[in-house]
């Protein structure tokens, strides 16, 4: 399978819908990426970082107690949550940060929603001595104050975006505006498989390691390929990363689980493929949530990382060709699966990944006993503890607010010394 074509098209999707001013930079990036793919020294350096810095290969864990709720299917978790910085995002970030250096650029910019990609980018920038600016919707900076602090501790400048809906899509717009202005010195370190060519291809290739590892690990453990692979889909980077190794295995079913929010029929969701339509957003033709005039509609999800009204073009292609199946998972379904994994396996998943877990429970029941379902556990849930605590009423809003305020306002020297 040789998708995309040389100009970045996955069937009718992908391509480049960008200002001419960015075409030269995208061409430069394409050349640098292709060169790096064939460059043994580059690949060795990236592989070295992935093992000694990120902690790869990540294991697979058989979720035996969780599996009892999946119709007796065997649920295997690909543990991307165990990566440095807490999610799969670091795979792509390290690859692009090395490319930035290869291109002779000294500054990276990134967009972030929940903060995971921003934290990963700030991390790589610190490691490789790059200036780093992260654009984050103002609303998200308020919801994810802790990740703003993490990025600043790592030396990044975080710029709250006050335009438009003040969320992830507006952060991408603002990063694009910065890029077009500073493209001589700056690389836009895009965090998902969306955007203009070569981003969907390049980000897929940097995340392919997830699927390559998992495919062999499942073969080693079970002696066969899995019946199904499940992943959550916002922009779709972790899903493409794990799908990539299985796309040519026609007997392996691929499932992408989108954020269904309050339910697709309520209109408050982020299920782009299920509830959206074809169009152009952020530099590529794909599916998006849009009104009858082509204006982007705001998405809704309990998971900030899936709260995006677009999706990568390769997912649109896999959706239209039927190679992968995309289904919505509501906030409630995701949080039920979140709780189940916590209680049965002692793993607190990212709420994004909980969408894949919820979907896997259904897929397991459909496939029946002993079917192997491989789930990409794309991130850990540390960042989601306050959201989950509110959802489950583990602590009250007032307590969380008071605690957060105390943490922020109390001078460090006055805080008590316990804890580590």
């Amino acid at each position, binding site marked *: 399978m040789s998708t995309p074509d040389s100009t970045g098209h996955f069937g009718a999707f992908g391509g480049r819908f960008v*200002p001419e001013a960015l075409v030269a930079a995208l061409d430069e990036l394409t050349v640098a990426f292709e060169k790096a793919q064939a460059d043994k020294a580059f690949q060795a350096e990236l592989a070295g970082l992935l093992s000694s810095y990120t902690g790869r290969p990540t294991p697979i864990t058989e979720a035996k107690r969780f599996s009892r709720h999946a119709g007796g299917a065997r649920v295997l978790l690909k543990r991307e949550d165990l990566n440095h910085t807490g999610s799969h995002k670091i795979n792509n970030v390290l690859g692009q940060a090395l490319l930035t250096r290869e291109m002779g650029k000294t500054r990276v910019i990134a967009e972030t929603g929940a903060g995971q990609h921003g934290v990963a980018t700030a991390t790589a920038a610190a490691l490789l001595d790059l200036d780093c600016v992260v654009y984050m919707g103002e609303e998200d900076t308020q919801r994810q104050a802790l990740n703003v602090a993490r990025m600043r501790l790592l030396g990044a400048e975080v710029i709250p975006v006050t335009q438009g809906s003040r969320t992830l899509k507006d952060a991408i717009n603002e990063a694009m505006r910065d890029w077009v202005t500073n493209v001589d010195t700056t690389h836009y370190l895009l965090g998902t498989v969306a955007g203009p060519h070569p981003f969907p291809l390049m980000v897929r290739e940097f995340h392919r390691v997830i699927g390559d590892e998992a495919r062999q690990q499942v073969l080693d453990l079970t002696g066969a390929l899995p019946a199904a692979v499940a992943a959550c889909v916002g922009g779709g980077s972790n899903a493409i990363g794990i799908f990539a190794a299985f796309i040519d295995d026609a007997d392996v079913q691929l499932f992408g689980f989108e954020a269904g929010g309050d339910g697709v029929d309520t209109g408050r969701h982020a299920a782009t493929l299920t509830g959206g339509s074809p169009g152009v957003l952020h530099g590529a033709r794909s599916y998006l949530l849009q009104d009858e005039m082509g204006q982007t509609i705001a998405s809704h999800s309990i998971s900030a990382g899936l709260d995006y009204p677009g999706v990568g073009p390769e997912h649109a292609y896999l959706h239209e060709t039927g190679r992968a199946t995309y289904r919505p998972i509501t906030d409630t379904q995701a949080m039920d699966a979140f709780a189940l994994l916590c209680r049965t396996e002692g793993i607190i998943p990212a709420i994004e990944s909980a969408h894949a877990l919820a979907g896997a429970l259904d897929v397991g029941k459909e496939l029946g006993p002993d079917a192997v379902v491989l789930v990409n556990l794309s991130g850990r849930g540390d960042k989601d503890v306050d959201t989950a605590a509110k959802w489950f009423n583990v602590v009250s809003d007032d307590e969380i607010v008071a605690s957060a305020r105390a943490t922020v306002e109390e001078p460090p020297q006055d805080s008590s010394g316990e804890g580590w």
Partner: protein
Amino acid sequence: MSTLSEVLAAARAEGRAALIGYLPAGYPTVEDGAAAMTAMVEAGVDIIEVGLPYSDPLMDGPTIQAAVEVALQRRTSTEDVVSTVREVAKTGAPTLVMSYWNPVQRYGVRRFADELAGAGGAGVITPDLTPDEAGEWLGATDATGLDRIFLVAPSSTEARLRYTADHCRGFVYAASTMGVTGARASVGDAADRLVARTRAVTDLPVCVGLGVSDGAQAAEVASFADGVIVGSAFVRRLLDAPSAAAGRDAVAQLAGELAEGVRRGRRA
């Protein structure tokens, strides 16, 4: 020859650059926006660009974004854009639409071209559509006779300049600097160089946009370009006006200043 080409040729015959003014449709309202554009023509703007409000305008700076957000909150539609064009075209000035690509695709590429041509529109500027992805658009503009204006940038290679200019009709839009729309203290040498590089590959007029905000800058750009495109500075006048009538007066005053500038900057 299209009306757009005629007006550009007439300005060239006078030894001056044409003045092209931008406002988004629907700000402050559809009717008042059209009236402001009409006032701009009466005060000396040669060609009008009607912006189609879009939720994700990644080539635009904060000034245009602010007006567009208001237009969208008031649910300005593609039909409103077409009706604005119809109103402004009555002045006789060539009337263009500037639109990001998704609203055109969503409306229907052929339907959009047909309705725009039917309303007397002269052409369309597409800031995020390059000829690479423009197959359907080339067909629709050929069928309707609309001029299609693509952008070139300081970063464009010579091959890209040639490729882009070969697909343009009416004029080539030279983005003066690397960046987004908005007033700048200086437009700089980059624009001059880009215009010269573009002229080397095409006989089409080359008009310069991004950053021009006053008569002195208009004169400077007019000394080397076939047209001077001003957007954010007009929008700023509307944003700052206490009433629609005051806004009309303010954009007309700026149009007069800029029109004087493009005449002062006649090529030596």
